[in-house]
């Protein structure tokens, strides 16, 4: 296990690549998902308030 984490002495270069990639990609996904949900909630509320002529979603 220690040998695996050590990555032949290159741990300081290899692990940041994987960790930063994971953090940024998961982060972008979560932020996008949250924006989508929040706008969907606002839209549904507003559509319930006023009868719409055409339904898009």
């Amino acid at each position, binding site marked *: 296990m220690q040998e*695996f984490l050590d*990555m*032949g*002495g*290159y741990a300081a*270069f*290899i692990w*940041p*690549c*994987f960790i*930063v*990639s994971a953090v*940024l*990609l998961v982060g*972008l*996904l979560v932020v*996008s*998902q949250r*924006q*989508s949900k929040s*706008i*969907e909630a*606002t*839209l549904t509320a*507003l*559509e319930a308030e*006023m009868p*719409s002529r055409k339904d*898009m*979603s």
Partner: protein
Amino acid sequence: MSRNFIRQVLYPAINYLLHRYANPARFMRMSARVTPWLAGITILLAGSGLYLGLFVSPADYQQSETVRIMYVHVPAAWIALSCYVGMAVGAAVGLIWKHPLAHVMTKSSAPIGAIFTFLALLTGSLWGKPMWGTYWVWDARLTSMLVLFFLYIGYMALNNAFDDPGRGTTTSAILVLVGSVNIPIIKFSVEWWNTLHQPASVIRAGGPAIDGSMLWPLLLMIAAYTTYYVWVLFIRMRTDIMETRLRALRMRQVHEQAGT
């Protein structure tokens, strides 16, 4: 192709197909069905790619363990480039056929492309230090990649610079098209100029120059990054379409209140 053929057959045909099959309502239905599948496939591909890349694939005889950086570096660079090509196609279709969904696609792609470009630069830099002895050199491949990053950032800044969403669409679409000259420069930079960066080893004449034990995790990660890109793109496009609808509804509400 004669000009008449383009004007009378080709242009209207594409126009018909675009508006018939790529309208926002249809996209909302399609994307709602497809997104869960994209999520599942992305997780499967990334899981198996990471497993093979970190645990199964061997260390390189020259680069030892650092070769594993390839499994996150090459896919990031691949999406950084193809995302921009997608944006350029979207910008062109949006400008020529005035197709609303095309502009939505271009706009929603930009932050994804910027993040992938940043990741390609960062992982490349962390790979360069142990292998080349430096984090950064101002050579053709690295510099053109940095230009790509600035193009993404510049596009987003320009798009946000207009108070009325949609006003900046044409201007920023032109920026995307002008910036697309950078794409072949990035692609062929390793052949046109002397550079520290190695030439292509997967898509090359004579087949891949990588052994299967490294090629498989690499291909799986490229596939995972691609499905992730489409997945997040769909989420962001849906958000943008809903935002447009929300603005229209608010506008109507204001008008109706003003009328009564």
